[in-house]
């Protein structure tokens, strides 16, 4: 399938198929690598936070979330956006500040947005999206939808006030929202043990009487099942759920970061559990995918992402008027 002839909703629906999930994880990996490469070539302004290693969380989230659900996530949101249905052209276009970008290039890497796939503007302020997802869930329910809110955030975000206030409010108001914590063990350059009393963050759910659990973030199959169960519970039974996903980022916090702060051996150990390899190997061993099939899939994805790279590199920047559009309902000035 080529991004050109596929709608974002088709891309979302495709994830019902496990091979498509593998394909999507590959697409995320290649897209993030392309962004880093373009960064190295000086084509990207500012910063960019990529998610290599965490792709299974994105596809599992997008698989179990319906298009009625509303998702808030962070600056580390490229993978989630792609999984939810956004195209590589739209993501990379925004990262490069081009008109073809998700919001026309005025936002950049940290600010993607797409209403049709239920993705609210992504948050560059740690924790801010957590209470917003609680309110979004209320909004969906008041609109008669059975959609829920989904707040995706990191381990470091569990130390900030918005996390505490958002979880408490969701609990006392019985709001159907899933708090999805991507515990990749680091907040920027600080390892979790230096900023948090313990690593099993799901334990924090007890402070709000929120059913909480930890799940493996590297195996897309089990993650889809376990996350699916939590989404169902949030959708059908009163109150929120807190899911801690154990994962790891294979790259630095942001482009310039070489991650010298990692514990020795930690990266290698986690790379042993590359979510793309785990699902790919299983599909192959199950005979769902042949060796050649898998190889061509990888080639296809690489080619498709490269096409997108060429498109965005050639794409024009937004024109001056874009700076003044959408400030308020009235035109700025």
């Amino acid at each position, binding site marked *: 399938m080529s991004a050109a002839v596929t709608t974002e909703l088709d891309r979302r629906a495709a994830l019902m198929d496990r091979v498509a999930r593998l394909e999507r994880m590959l697409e995320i990996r290649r897209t993030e690598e392309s962004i880093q490469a373009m960064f190295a070539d000086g084509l990207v302004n500012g910063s960019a936070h990529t998610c290599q290693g965490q792709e299974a969380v994105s596809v599992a989230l997008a698989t179990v979330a319906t298009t009625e659900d509303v998702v808030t996530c962070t600056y580390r949101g490229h993978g989630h956006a792609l999984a939810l249905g956004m195209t590589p052209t739209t993501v990379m276009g925004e990262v490069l500040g081009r008109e073809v970008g998700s919001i026309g290039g005025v936002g950049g890497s940290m600010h993607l947005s797409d209403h049709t796939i239920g993705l609210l503007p992504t948050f560059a302020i740690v924790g801010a999206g957590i209470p917003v997802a609680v*309110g979004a869930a209320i909004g969906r329910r008041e609109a008669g939808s059975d959609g829920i809110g989904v707040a995706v955030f990191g381990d470091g975000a569990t130390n900030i006030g918005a996390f505490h206030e958002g979880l408490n409010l969701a609990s006392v108001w019985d709001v159907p929202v899933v708090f999805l914590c991507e515990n990749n063990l680091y907040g920027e350059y600080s390892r979790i043990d230096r900023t948090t009393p313990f690593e099993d963050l799901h334990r924090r759910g007890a402070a709000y009487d929120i059913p909480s659990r930890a799940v493996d973030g590297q195996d897309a199959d089990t993650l889809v099942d376990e996350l699916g169960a939590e989404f169902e519970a949030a959708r059908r039974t009163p109150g929120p759920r807190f899911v801690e996903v154990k994962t790891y980022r294979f790259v630095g916090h942001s482009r310039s970061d070489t991650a010298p702060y990692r514990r020795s051996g930690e990266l290698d150990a986690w790379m042993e559990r590359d979510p793309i390899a785990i699902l790919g190997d299983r599909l192959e061993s199950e005979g769902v995918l042949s060796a050649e099939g898998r190889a061509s899939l990888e080639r296809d994805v690489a080619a498709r992402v490269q096409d997108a790279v060429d498109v965005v590199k050639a794409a024009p920047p937004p024109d001056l008027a874009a700076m003044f559009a959408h400030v*308020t309902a009235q035109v700025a000035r």
Partner: protein
Amino acid sequence: MLLRMNQAIAAGIRDEMRADPTVVVWGEDVAEAGGVFKATVGLHEEFGDRVRDTPISEMGFLGAAVGAASTGLRPVVEIMFIEFLGVALDQLVTEAAFYRYLSAGEVTVPLVVRGSVGAGMGFGAQHSQTLERWLVGSPGIKVAMPSSSRTAYGLIRSAIRDDDPVVVLEPRALYAEREDLEPSDEHIIPLGQAELLTEGDDVTLITLGNTVGTALTAARNAAWSADVIDLLTLQPWDRQLVFDSVSKTGRLVVVEESPWSGGWGADIVAAVTEELFGELRAPTVRVTTPDVPVPFAAELEARYLPASDEVTRQVDGLLETGRSIGPWWLREESLR
């Protein structure tokens, strides 16, 4: 009927809630109790769960309101005292205010934040400021401040109908003030429109909220005649009405319940000086509060606020000498 300003606010919210089922009201003790300042009395009785008490967590419920506004509701959030925005400002000016921009217009945030403001009630340093300076200059939001029951009713209704975040700063010293008002659609006051309260030739007095009465009292008993303008909306403010008036009078005096440094009047002065310099016949003057925390003792708090006789002295001085006599605390003997 005679309505206190807090009752007029409740009536305005009520009328919008009747007209639009997506309007909801959240805040600390706004439901059964009707709010600490009684500005939401009766709403819970009539609208039930659409009016909700929140835990003490401004970041949490303001953030939730941003999410709800992004998905179809029109939340009216009460921030009991505007200082409490200091624990939640991010959600208003960094998230809600930028959502339309950061979604290329796809996501709008029809959110209203009501906050009580101002001194004169003996609430002390952490519960008496106006703090419009935290908001003005934030792209994406609007800021309004009523000066009476009528304007409170008219502004809150426009605020709720507006498709962007609107902050309504309510001078708490005026909550108990009565005014005759029949709540109805024709009392709706469009955001961005100031009102010319009195017409005169000598000076333009720009006022807002609690200083409207201060300036009117001064003008009523003065030797000079003034255009007294109630700004009503601070962002965006009514440049046309202000410019027209100053072009006529040639003199501008801003009366602010806001500090000498960072007060909202400086923006008005700067715009007027840049646009109408040729028409100004005298220096612009700002009558403000001193740059100190709001003192508690009644005697001091009374001095802290801009007084009508100070406005009189300032305009008298301006007309007599053609110069500004300077703020009272620089003239005060006992402070030398």
